[in-house]
């Protein structure tokens, strides 16, 4: 057997986005020798694309904001399917995590009194998103990257070797997690550059691999989003939760075709942009759902006043949670009131002066100017829904990020539960930091407790993993991976997209079976050195597995909630709110099981009034509620 490169660490973190970097900083700070592994160059992970901001109830712009209000908004956004414990930890710890970034060197936009400025976003009651123009993700990733460099500089001063305790392995793809009996023993992967294999011996592995969007045709996600972490974790025996909940962001670019799906940040609406149809009507007023009546304006006049006087006016319906807006746009287009290229209009040019647009939305200006030849300071944009985020992910313990398998942890978009059925804008970046840190600490504690009984990666496992990775070279004259990928994306888009139906989901599952068979015969040309055809062939297996999770869970959940809309089962069903769908590997396929949601702690329940809870809960649950007075406390 060919020689493989071998490394040994206490903790390895798969993923160098916000979650992975924060996890690595924590593990290293707690004394663990830590490796960070990522598919692209250091500093390029998907987090770099985040635009609008990071949600944290610092109360800098409106002092009424606090963690309880943030918690409440998050639960409402997720339609009460969130892991309440995660939502609680997230809301409580997000401000500390943002302030900490400043100590690493981040430079957020400021308020007049010199604090971190905060902007409005969909579903957030108060201005809450810390931001840097519309490039907040870049600031986050660069800051964490530079913090890692600073830790390496520290190590260099102490030991003469900058990489002695924290090393980044960039452009390396992990294809398998290895096991020592029931527990994790490390990971196997290949250098993208040379195609050579690498084995990491490590008792703890943190999955921070991001999302799954590349299984869909129209998406704001990059090639990295092939659901690797989801699939790797499942194959190691872990479970995924809530995979049916996929967020379609309401505003992606729709024209020209080559940029279809690229994100148009929600800040456009947060800063005053409005959605109109081909008749020039602000249609969102027709789409305020019952559960949100009372929180959103009824008239354009009131909505417009809100931007300057939020105390005395209700917010514009353009700022409803994303699932609502995406469905509304979908309906307008279906009803024949769309824009020329099958979207609707998003206009900020008639709402803000040119200079203000250039200052607040510079990347959007350039994106439209350079890619679509549209000047957003002078004309409306055309936008439509795009696959953006997966709420589902590895099922973890809220406090430690521990998955079902000893030694396995997950954080960030790859983990599930925090956002319930729908994520609020800005809640991902904060999620990455809060739970990245917790997973890093969880892994450190785990490694500290296992003592000398370290697991090892066996030769036999290495043989198997190498053979699997090389399979696409063995087959000859088989299928082209690009063709299969295109077919997968088309089916997921058409059959498991924003609006779903039983027969279509069944058709999707049938198609997935076919693709699964065909993928076994994929063959690639050339050699192992930087070969994108080969890389795609390997990623394809992960995409098919994850797509099956989504389609199966979507078929089972017979209701519409958040990022899961069933044409044949409209409306939320309180019975279904009590059910999480859990995916696990079953032979060559995926099994989905029902699992009860844990009930919220009484002090958290008390943050909502009974009337609101009655929209989500069953009669039996309501009967069990402690009697509370019905006036809504604001804190």
């Amino acid at each position, binding site marked *: 057997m060919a020689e493989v490169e071998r490394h040994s660490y206490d903790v390895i973190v798969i993923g160098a986005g916000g979650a992975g970097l924060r996890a690595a900083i924590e593990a290293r700070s707690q004394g663990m020798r830590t490796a960070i592994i990522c598919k692209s160059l250091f500093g390029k992970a998907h987090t770099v694309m985040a635009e609008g901001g990071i949600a944290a109830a610092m109360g800098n712009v409106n002092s009424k904001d606090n963690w309880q209000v943030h918690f409440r908004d998050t639960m409402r956004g997720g339609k009460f399917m969130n892991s309440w414990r995660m939502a609680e930890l997230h809301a409580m710890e997000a401000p500390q995590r943002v302030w900490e970034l400043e100590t690493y060197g981040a*430079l957020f936009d400021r308020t007049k009194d010199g604090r971190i400025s905060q902007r409005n976003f969909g579903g957030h009651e108060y201005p809450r998103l810390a931001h*840097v123009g519309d490039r907040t993700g*870049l600031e986050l990733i660069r800051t964490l990257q530079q913090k890692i460099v600073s830790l390496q500089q520290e190590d260099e001063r102490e030991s003469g070797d900058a990489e002695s305790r924290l090393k980044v392995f960039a452009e390396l793809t992990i294809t398998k997690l290895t096991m020592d009996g029931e527990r994790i023993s490390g990971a196997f992967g290949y250098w993208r550059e040379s195609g050579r294999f690498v084995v990491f011996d490590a008792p703890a592995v943190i999955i921070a691999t991001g999302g799954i969007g590349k299984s869909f045709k129209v998406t704001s996600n990059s090639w990295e989003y092939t659901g690797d972490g989801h699939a790797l974790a499942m194959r190691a025996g872990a479970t995924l939760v809530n995979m049916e909940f996929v967020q379609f962001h309401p505003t992606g670019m729709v024209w020209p075709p080559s940029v279809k799906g690229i994100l148009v940040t929600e800040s456009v609406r947060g800063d005053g942009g409005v959605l109109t149809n081909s008749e020039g009507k602000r249609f969102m007023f027709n789409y305020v759902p019952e559960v949100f009546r009372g929180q959103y304006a009824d008239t354009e006049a009131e909505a417009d006043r809100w931007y300057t006087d939020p105390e005395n006016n209700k917010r514009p319906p353009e700022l409803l949670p994303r699932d609502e807006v995406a469905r509304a746009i979908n309906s307008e287009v279906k009803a024949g009131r769309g824009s020329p290229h099958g979207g609707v209009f998003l206009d900020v040019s008639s709402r803000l002066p040119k200079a203000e647009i250039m200052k607040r939305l510079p990347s959007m200006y350039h994106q439209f100017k350079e890619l679509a030849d549209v000047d957003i300071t002078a004309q409306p944009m055309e936008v439509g829904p795009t696959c953006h985020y997966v709420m589902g992910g590895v099922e973890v313990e809220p406090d430690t990020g521990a998955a079902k398998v000893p030694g396995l942890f997950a954080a960030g978009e790859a983990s599930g539960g925090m956002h319930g059925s729908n994520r609020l804008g800005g809640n991902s970046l904060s999620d990455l930091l809060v739970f990245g840190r917790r997973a890093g600490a969880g892994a450190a504690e785990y490694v500290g407790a296992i003592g000398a009984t370290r697991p090892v990666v066996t030769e036999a496992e290495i043989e198997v993993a190498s053979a699997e990775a090389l399979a696409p070279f063995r087959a000859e004259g088989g299928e082209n991976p690009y063709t299969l990928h295109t077919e997968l994306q088309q089916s997921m888009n058409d059959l498991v997209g924003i609006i779903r139906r039983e027969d279509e989901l069944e058709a999707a599952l049938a198609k997935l079976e076919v693709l699964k068979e065909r993928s076994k015969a994929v063959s690639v040309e050339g050699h192992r050195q930087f070969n994108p055809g080969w890389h795609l062939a390997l990623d394809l297996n992960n995409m098919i597995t994850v797509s099956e999770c989504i389609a199966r869970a979507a078929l089972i959940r017979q209701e519409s909630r958040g990022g899961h809309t069933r044409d044949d089962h409209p409306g939320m069903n309180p019975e279904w709110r009590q059910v999480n769908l859990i995916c696990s590997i079953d032979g060559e396929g995926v099994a989905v099981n029902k699992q009860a949601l844990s009930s919220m702690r009484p002090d958290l329940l008390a943050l909502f009034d009974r009337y609101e809870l009655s929209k989500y809960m069953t009669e039996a649950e309501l009967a069990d509620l402690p009697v509370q007075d019905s006036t809504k406390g604001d804190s």
Partner: protein
Amino acid sequence: MGHNAKLRVWRGDASGGDLKDYTVEVNEGEVVLDVIHRLQATQTPDLAVRWNCKAGKCGSCSAEVNGRPRLMCMCQMNNFAEDEVITITPMRAFPVIRDLVTDVSYNYEKARKVPSFAPPKDLAPGDYRMQQVDVERSQEFRKCIECFLCNNTCHVIRDHEENKENFSGPRFLMRIAELDMHPLDTLDRKKMAQEEHGLGYCNITKCCSEVCPEHIHITDNALIPMKERVADVKYDPFFAIWSLFRKPDNAKS
């Protein structure tokens, strides 16, 4: 409406290579990266190219298009005539790994040589207070997506491998300026810019600023102000002569 474009793409690796001709379909609104991807999907599945966001945000897809350093994902095909031959080559200042992918580790090594942000020791998280006007200067530099096109372009290293040792390139000189202008940074960074990162090599040609896809005024806002401050500390011949001819309205605020 599609047409067929004529592409010449550099294929090869560290041991050598050459330009290969291809004819590839192009559709309305497409960028060079789309066409490279079509080439990959239909004719050359093993063509190596780096990319991520395809939206000009990650700085992965740097290459040279007809000799000009560009992000392939932000380079519209309609910039070229339909019958024009478009030549795509890897960045020249960095060693080729394969095809359009280069070894940019030089940049990461230089990054590690810049001492990190050093806040006042007694300032607690949450207590940072800075005015917008004071953070704006460093914020401009933090727009950098690390595409390394500026470093690729700067003549000090583009054809002078030997200078790489002593010169960190515009990207990291700008990083030093960014920290120097950070309202709460406590280190004095002028001397290190000159002595350890080779600020003196820069003769303010502004070529770096011209290729920056983020339109950062690297030379005017980062390098020149640094040189000005260094000039107080140390003699820099280029700068001494240049400042004699300087218009007063260039003075930094």
